[in-house]
């Protein structure tokens, strides 16, 4: 095959290098998320990065199967990079943990891989942080993962965000009441998903049902907003399934009110994405500065049953890279200094012990292993934004130079000084 010659070090589309501040920021965010998940009683799960393609693309993962990176093992078996972490977690629970006491609470933070057009916030390799609450069918479990998402976003430093909350049972019930062909059902789903009034009107024009049914279709795209929309939804419910979906949303809303997070929630019964996958509530989180969801999740009671005994489950996955974009948009980006202090490398063991002491106290201290002159070292620190330079004044004595001036100190004063940096 005749391939275009690559430029040296060229990257494939949809991947990124992170270093310096961006890498630190991402790791710090992951640490914050890990801490929050842990505080809510979730424990880590670390599945393999690749598995047999068959496992990942079973009926369970069919929505992602087309986007998987596939390759062959030496014995000719098809492997694939994981396109998400929910399917591997479901496999672990279904195959290995089916007899464990319930509920199981898992969290993960890891990279996933999807072959899709790299645009609109979509990368081919990206980081997901998420939770799965397994074995609890109640509304209180639904509310827990949403409240945890709110807590995690707030802990990350995001203040302005909203979560749209729907219940797929409402739309499923509507489809059941209409008894449409698969094709017509998909046409209706797309129209609702796009909030397309025109397409809805066209569908209604072709539809010969009673007035009550027509109204239910016409009103559906507008069922978004405060809990009052639940009253309206209840009014137009055509069958038990639709009514049950509304009742479930009421219970979830009530629990969310107890968690004091409803300021961030918008109800949206026209949310119909991932219909093949979700079986109950479904939600997406949005923040200013990012035109697409930061996180999405919901209840998927049918997934684990592909790998073992059926198990109700609810969870979410947050795209860490998108959350970073949203945080950049919301907070004036402050550039933290890369390290706290740089030491002249004088070769005294006593001076080196001051460096080691600083590190053991928690300061970020580096030695100038290039052995620069004092002038060069000062210039380097200024350019790098390093706030302090320690110059040797004899064994165990340093002159600490900062913007405010300079001061000579020995071990005792040094320790006291370092403590003031790390507060």
């Amino acid at each position, binding site marked *: 095959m005749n391939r275009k010659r690559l430029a040296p070090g060229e990257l494939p589309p949809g991947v990124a290098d992170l270093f310096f501040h961006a890498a630190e920021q991402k790791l710090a965010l992951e640490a914050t998320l890990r801490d929050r998940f842990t505080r809510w009683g979730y424990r880590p799960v670390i599945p393999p990065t690749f598995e047999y393609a068959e496992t990942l693309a079973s009926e369970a993962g069919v929505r992602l199967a087309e986007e998987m990176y596939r390759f062959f093992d030496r014995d000719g078996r098809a492997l694939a990079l994981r396109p998400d972490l929910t399917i591997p977690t479901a496999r672990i629970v279904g195959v290995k943990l089916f007899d464990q006491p319930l509920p199981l609470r898992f969290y993960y933070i890891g990279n996933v891989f999807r072959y899709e057009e790299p645009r609109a916030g979509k990368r081919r390799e990206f980081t997901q942080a998420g939770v799965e609450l397994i074995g609890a069918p109640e509304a209180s479990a639904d509310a827990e993962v949403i409240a945890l998402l709110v807590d995690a976003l707030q802990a990350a430093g995001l203040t302005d965000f909203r979560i749209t909350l729907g219940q797929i049972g409402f739309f499923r019930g509507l489809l059941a009441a209409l008894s449409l062909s698969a094709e017509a059902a998909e046409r209706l789903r797309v129209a609702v998903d*796009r909030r*397309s009034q*025109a397409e809805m009107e066209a569908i209604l024009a072709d539809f010969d049902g009673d007035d009550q049914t027509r109204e239910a279709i016409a009103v559906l795209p507008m069922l978004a*907003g405060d809990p009052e929309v639940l009253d309206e939804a209840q009014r137009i419910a055509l069958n038990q399934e639709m009514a049950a979906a509304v009742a479930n949303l009421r219970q979830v809303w009530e629990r969310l009110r107890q968690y004091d997070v409803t300021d961030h929630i918008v109800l*949206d019964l026209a949310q119909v994405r991932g219909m093949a996958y979700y079986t109950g509530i479904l939600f997406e989180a949005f923040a*200013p500065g990012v*035109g697409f969801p930061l996180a999405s999740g919901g209840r998927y009671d049918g997934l684990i049953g592909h790998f073992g005994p059926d198990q109700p489950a609810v969870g979410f996955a947050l795209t860490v890279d998108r959350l970073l974009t949203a945080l950049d948009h919301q907070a004036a980006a402050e550039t933290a200094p890369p390290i706290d202090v740089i030491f002249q490398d004088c070769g005294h063991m006593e001076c080196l012990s001051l460096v080691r002491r600083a590190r053991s106290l928690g300061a970020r201290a580096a030695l100038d292993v290039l052995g620069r002159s004092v002038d060069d070292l000062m210039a380097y620190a200024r350019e790098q934004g390093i706030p302090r330079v320690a110059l040797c004044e004899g064994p165990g004595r340093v002159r600490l130079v900062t913007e405010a001036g300079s001061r000579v100190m020995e071990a005792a004063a040094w320790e006291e000084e370092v403590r003031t940096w790390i507060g």
Partner: protein
Amino acid sequence: MDRLRIALPKGRLLSASLDFLARAGYDFREGVQHTRRLLVSDGTGRLEAVLVKPKDIPVFVEYGAADLGIVGTDVLREVERDVYEPLLLPFGYCRLSVAAPADRPDTPLRLEPSPRVATSYPNLTHRFFQERGVSPEIILLSGSVELSPLVGLADLLVDMVETGRTLRENGLVELRTIMHSQAALIANRAAYALKKEAITALIEDLRRTVAEMRSADDA
């Protein structure tokens, strides 16, 4: 309430879009026609407009750089971006058609082996021919599409037709309509959640204006 940003299409749809918004109470006409600024505010301060090329409008809206946009459904289907389409607007009517020189023998398109088709709508064109089992050679142009059969660049062309006059004057005939198009309001998915109140109020204003224009047409 949050201020919203709407992306308006430069070119064919611009003046009808401006008239429509003015009728709904958001008047950008002064700002757009008498300045060269790309970001214009209306009198009410509730809405600001950016002027961009039609094909870029769904992109601005998908990324959330604009909360809303006005664009033809032809462009919307061509570029396939993930946006909401709450409202069709009563202007910008036209159709996307396949056309050929008037002296083309009268044979069905599906019998063409691999026609050379000039267009600035490659995705819709490709889909139209694929559905007929024909794999066309698509010649992507950004303008002067009508010229291409006359100078031997292409066998067929696919382009937007309003009255058909340009085609006739160039000795071309319409063979088939691929789709009918009109202006549509599109919205960013995140803005729908984050600025729900402002967006709902604006869409309501526009919906009312559409209804008024329809009943005026009927009268």
